[in-house]
């Protein structure tokens, strides 16, 4: 199966190790991964900040880049939700604005074949034990757009539970938002920081060494709060845990 890695602009720029981990993991599972170099950004930040019309060219660009692939895999719950949930809505809105079917038709092909990484593993590849080894105590934070947008459910936890050496501990208040919320973090910094601090305190209370999530945007906020609060915990993307093996452990 030939799949396209939709890495997301944030990961491409700031978290290349997550991208490398996805490539390593999928390759190990026999998947042929391509990274279309023309990919940029899905337009989520534009859309969610109120710039839907600015997001439209980015969505069209996304569709141009990815539509030829059988499957599109992304290690980001929120960017995955952008394509799956909000691209159809953008098409509907354009229609309601009297601009016809063009946008909806352009975006339609990529919507059903875009998968968040853990969905792709569990639903498409039908694996939960990916042969990973990660000898650390880990707590898992389900990010909002993965949890409530895509409905990832227990997929990430099932994958983590199958990892050798990994001890998974419950995160109190797991389903509460970490306070990132894209531009929310900048527009309402005090509330955002308070939410982040509460999330980090809850994570700390578990005694885990690692807080794991399936979205680096949230981890950027949580991790930045962790170092500021000097917790000694570290944020790690789930792809890096699942890519880690006894022979080639994560750093």
């Amino acid at each position, binding site marked *: 199966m030939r799949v396209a890695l939709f890495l997301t602009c944030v990961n491409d*720029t700031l978290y*290349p190790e997550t991208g490398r981990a996805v490539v390593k993991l999928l390759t190990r599972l026999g998947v042929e991964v391509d990274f279309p170099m023309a990919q940029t950004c899905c337009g989520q930040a534009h859309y969610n*900040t*109120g710039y839907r019309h600015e997001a439209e060219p980015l969505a069209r660009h996304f569709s141009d880049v990815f539509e030829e692939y059988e499957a599109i895999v992304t290690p980001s719950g929120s960017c995955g939700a952008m394509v799956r949930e909000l691209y159809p809505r953008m098409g509907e809105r354009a229609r309601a604005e009297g601009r016809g079917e063009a946008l909806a038709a352009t975006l339609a092909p990529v919507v059903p074949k875009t998968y968040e990484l853990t969905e792709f593993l569990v639903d498409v590849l039908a694996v939960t034990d990916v042969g990973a080894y990660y000898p650390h105590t880990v707590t898992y934070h389900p990010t909002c757009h993965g949890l*409530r947008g895509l409905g990832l459910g227990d997929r990430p936890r099932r994958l983590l539970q199958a990892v050798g050496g990994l001890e998974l501990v419950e995160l109190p208040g797991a389903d509460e938002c970490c306070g990132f919320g894209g531009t929310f973090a900048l*527009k*309402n*910094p*005090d509330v955002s920081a308070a939410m982040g601090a509460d999330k980090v305190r809850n994570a700390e209370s578990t005694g885990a060494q690692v807080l794991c999530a399936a979205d680096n945007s949230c981890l950027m906020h949580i991790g930045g709060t962790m170092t500021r609060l000097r917790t000694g915990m570290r944020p790690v993307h789930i792809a890096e845990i699942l890519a880690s093996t006894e022979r080639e452990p994560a750093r």
Partner: protein
Amino acid sequence: MSGTFVGMPAFPEAAREAVADPTLRGNLRHATHTIRAKRAAAVAEMSDWVELREAGRRIKDHTLRRLDRYLVQLEEAVTAAGGTVHWAADADEANRIVTRLVKETGESEVVKVKSMATQEIGLNEALEAEGIRAYETDLAELIVQLGRDRPSHILVPAIHRNRGEIRDIFRAEMGEWGRPAPEGLTDTPAELAEAARLHLREKFLRAKVGISGANFMVAETGTLVVVESEGNGRMCLTLPETLISVVGIEKIVPTWRDLEVFLQTLPRSSTAERMNPYTSTWTGTRDGDAGEGDGPRTFHLVLLDNGRTDTLADEVGRQALRCIRCSACLNVCPVYERAGGHAYGSVYPGPIGAILSPQLRGTGSEIDASLPYASSLCGACYEVCPVAIDIPEVLVHLRERVVEGGLVTREGNKVVLKPARGHAAERAAMRAARWAFSRPGALRAGQRLASRTRALHPRTLPGPGRAWSAARDLPAVPAEPFRDWWQRTNGGTTEEGTAK
């Protein structure tokens, strides 16, 4: 603390104070976390919750699509049952009608059931200005009124107060309004409730005019429904000679049968009970067909628009009119939990307030233009909403209205809104980002520049960037972006080496 919301600062500034207030944070955290788990348990008892939620959504949507017809049908039914229907296009008109109706009774005081609509229009202040004293009889409303405070929650307007604060308010203020608090009043909730019972009883027993809202109005029968807990509603609805109900036009359901949906979903979503202690339904007056000489002799229904038809005109935003005011969205909202209700600058706080206020009032004021951003879009509100209002969708839609402007309806007229001021820099940044993201080469050039200069990057930022770095460290920029690694290693197939 003033009793009105006029001149509120924008949400972020108002929220900053709340976040820094440890008592308030503690009170809100305690209350919202208490109710969250209970609501989840009450909902989990219902194996058909999904179907009830869908039916609620569809009944409301159906009604809104034919609102004109159902309003006329309701008017006929209420009139036939002996009631009088009044129509109020805005808050001023509603206040004038109610003031006139009270004056016609010759009374100078009224007892009130908790009602969002009368808070929305500022009825108490309007009555006060005409020399009529309105007594709030819901416990939380009483706490707010005695404390000269503002409501901060739809269901529990005094949620920002803990038991100790409530005791202090009762001790200090009850004597000013009537029967003083009992000697030696402690802060146990049962004693506080007893103090309210004693204080209000004399007012109920002598009241000649009651004012209420309603949770539902049944178009086919002309029946009004009030859902409550304490019995203050029953007091106000049954003891006075005259009852005046002020109700938003969106509170209609077509048939008696429709109540079977909402009387199941509202209590569980609201107070997390299988059923609230008291629900009253009445049709017209005691002289109506089956009134049996029971209840008020005169009944007035004031149908309130006050921005609702403007909201109805917006095809994305109109879903907010499905709201049944259960407040489940407030109780699960992480932003509400930290910012508190006052920061929303409206009687409708929390997620539903963030989409209702800017629609009912427009986005002209600083606070209303900031409300659509008072959310991390986490979606918890949508998940618990018993009528499936997609609050995040409407928030994003209203953000668009703020930054792009466009055609909206205000007071029934189509007007073209200009983009809000204060977003120019953001708009420029969004355009620049869109430009770069439309060109992979430009994105790559930017990434490389960031990587090459990474030794120079500070961990904190000046200017607007401080909004991030005041509380969070910045991520370190990697030696090379992923796409460079991909190309250099031929998709990870050749020896990795290190980035140049």
